[in-house]
């Protein structure tokens, strides 16, 4: 049986008086790449923040690696890439990674490994603020990989990347999953869906589908995930 890294029950989150997550139940398995897809504003980032433990929860249960989300024991176990790159623009790539490595208590040799994983070894000594948007977001990704986390939460890590690099990063995600990590990746680009082992489709704070890409295509008789999503939305509205 698959080991669940994340179990969410009846999760509700209200932000600024508006219900953003409206009753979610799902799990994220270890050893898989799970895609979180849905239109802009549907609550993907809010959900990811909740799993990482930085978002206040209104009601419901969120269990991560056997502990409630936000527990102190989880701070070493989760790698999180927020949607906007959270790194220091006035430091070099290596200085950024070394700093976070010291906070995590991992050695400097891990810094070079993580730079290679995101294909930034050539930019090690450049100031982050002078990198391109895609390069910057890869620095942020490298920071999340430092601690060899058991759960990786990646909020749109492939935005602004060229197709070659995107394929490479997805390969990296799968390698990390093969090594046993649970990888949750959000995207609003539906064509990335086929690269996931499992998909969570979200709309307006609710999950409208949870399954394998092929299972979803079969069920909706659609030719791609984009059409599957549209047909699920139509069914929901008709119901």
């Amino acid at each position, binding site marked *: 049986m698959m080991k669940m890294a994340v179990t969410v029950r009846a999760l509700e989150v209200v*932000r*600024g008086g508006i219900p953003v997550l409206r009753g979610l139940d799902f799990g994220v398995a270890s050893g898989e790449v799970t895609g979180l897809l849905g239109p802009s504003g549907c609550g993907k980032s809010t959900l990811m923040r909740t799993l*990482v*433990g*930085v*978002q*206040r929860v209104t009601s419901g249960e969120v269990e991560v690696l056997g502990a409630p989300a*936000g527990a*102190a024991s989880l*701070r*070493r176990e*989760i790698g*999180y890439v*927020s949607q*906007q*790159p*959270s*790194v*220091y*623009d*006035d*430091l070099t790539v290596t*200085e950024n990674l070394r*700093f*976070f490595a*010291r*906070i*995590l*208590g991992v050695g400097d040799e891990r810094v070079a490994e993580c730079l290679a994983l995101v294909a930034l070894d050539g930019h090690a000594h450049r*100031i982050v603020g002078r990198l391109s948007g895609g390069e910057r977001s890869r620095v942020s990704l490298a*920071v999340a990989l430092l601690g060899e986390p058991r759960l990786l939460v990646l909020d749109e890590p492939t935005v602004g990347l060229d197709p070659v690099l995107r394929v490479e990063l997805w390969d990296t995600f799968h390698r990390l999953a093969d090594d046993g990590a649970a990888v949750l990746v959000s995207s609003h680009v539906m064509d990335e869906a086929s690269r996931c082992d499992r998909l969570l489709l979200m709309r307006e704070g609710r999950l409208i589908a949870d399954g394998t890409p092929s299972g979803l295509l079969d069920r909706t008789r659609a030719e791609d995930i984009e059409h599957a999503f549209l047909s699920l939305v139509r069914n929901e509205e008709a119901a």
Partner: protein
Amino acid sequence: MSALLTPSATGAVATRVLTQLRRDHRTLAMLLVLPCALMSVLWWMFHDLPGEGFSRLGPALLALIPFIIMFLVTSVTTLRERTSGTLERLLAMPMGKLDFLLGYALAFGLVAAVQSALAVGVCVVLLDLSIAGPVWMLMVVAVVDAVLGTALGLFVSAFARTEFQAVQFMPALVIPQILLCGLFVPRDALPRVLDVISEALPLSYAVDAMQRVASSGRTGEVWTDVALVAAYAVAGLALGALTLRRQSD
């Protein structure tokens, strides 16, 4: 529970802040040169006047400068850390809140030490400021004073959404302290109410300490003032720790 304080993490934060500062040549130059320039202007102002204007006001200015500068620098840097998401990232990592706060205090305390060493050096060597007490004590006061500015800056950055707002805390929290610290009107000559208020403000003690080192050199009284300023700094850091929330709405 993660440890409240890990020396390696505190050190990492301090080193990082200093590296960021080192990258910013213009800020660094201003931090080190401006206090010396301001002291020189003060000396020049009183040069042709009778009386001891420079000796009276110089020590007070030496207390004001590190406090004001570190307050501003810290509130803007931490605000930037909040808006860029790096603070949230750090709080999601095994980093104690105290590591963050003390890292900043350490880094800016160190900058203040260098800054005031230069300013005091200029005053004593070039501008003939007479100091009755030990000169190094001026620097101790300056460093404690800078840490106080840093602590307050960390605290108020939690209440600012933008850099504009952060800078507005300067007239709100700093200028009243400058007005009431005894620089313009001796504190015991202030109206009763203002005198009581001035006794509750940390900068009053910082200025007192500087003036005591300069005029009498009675170090016992200076240490009492320094201890009071330090107590305010610790309280400021504690309040700052309360504003660092691992979860937000």
